[in-house]
């Protein structure tokens, strides 16, 4: 997959070349932005505790409007932090622990 010109820069004067791709950086930004939010962190903690929950379980526990809960869950889902699973007429949300530990590793390395 070759990157579009103009969206990628290469820094050449370091020990090795460093390539920065705007589209790639945006992806990582969206992931960190998804988890860097107080309410969404509460959702993560809640799912950590209960493993599997429906939107209803979540918005009742957190005393939110359903639309607000759905919006924030969608952001977490796009970042890959939560995944959904259909069971009959219910849709259950659960944490992707592997994804979370990947994010944790990214944060540790970036902040090093």
């Amino acid at each position, binding site marked *: 997959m070759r990157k579009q010109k103009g*969206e990628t*820069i*290469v*820094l*050449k*004067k*370091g*020990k*090795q070349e*460093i*390539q*920065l791709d*705007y589209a*790639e*950086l*945006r*992806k*990582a*930004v969206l*992931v*960190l*932005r998804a*988890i*860097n939010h107080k309410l969404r962190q509460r959702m993560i903690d809640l799912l*950590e*505790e*209960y*493993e*599997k929950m429906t939107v209803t379980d979540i918005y009742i526990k957190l005393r939110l409007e359903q639309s607000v809960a759905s919006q924030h869950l969608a952001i977490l889902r796009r970042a*890959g932090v939560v995944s959904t699973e259909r069971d009959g007429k219910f849709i259950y949300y659960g944490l992707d*622990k592997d994804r*979370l*530990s*990947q*994010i*944790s*590793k*990214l*944060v*540790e*390395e*970036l*902040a*090093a």
Partner: protein
Amino acid sequence: MGLQHFFYNNFDKIINWRIFAIAHYFKTTKVTSMRKAKVNINDEKLQVSSEILRALAHPLRMKILEFIDENDTINVNKIYNTLKLEQSITSQHLRILRLAGLVITERDGKFIHYKLDYDKLSNAMEAIDSFLEQEVN
């Protein structure tokens, strides 16, 4: 019709409700005890890394980084003159890059020179690249 009477007449309903509540309690706590270890993300580090990513993921700041790289060290005037930007805008973006630790400043008399922190940049890009690689799998 006292309270006692009410309980007596609705005894089965009340019991049913309590059994349901107890069952629900066990349903939710059982999974809790089986869960994997909690993934902790340090908040301070999350702020630091968000700042770094935010600083990098911006077309104009990328252009500024590229320009500083081409010139080793450079002062603000030359950056905004060459890239045809306003000075205030240039300074603003340089400030974001500096606070994220991606560029370093050196004062030389009345000039401030900017240069890239290559270690920081390559460390950051390595971390980001390996994170994004996992995403594909």
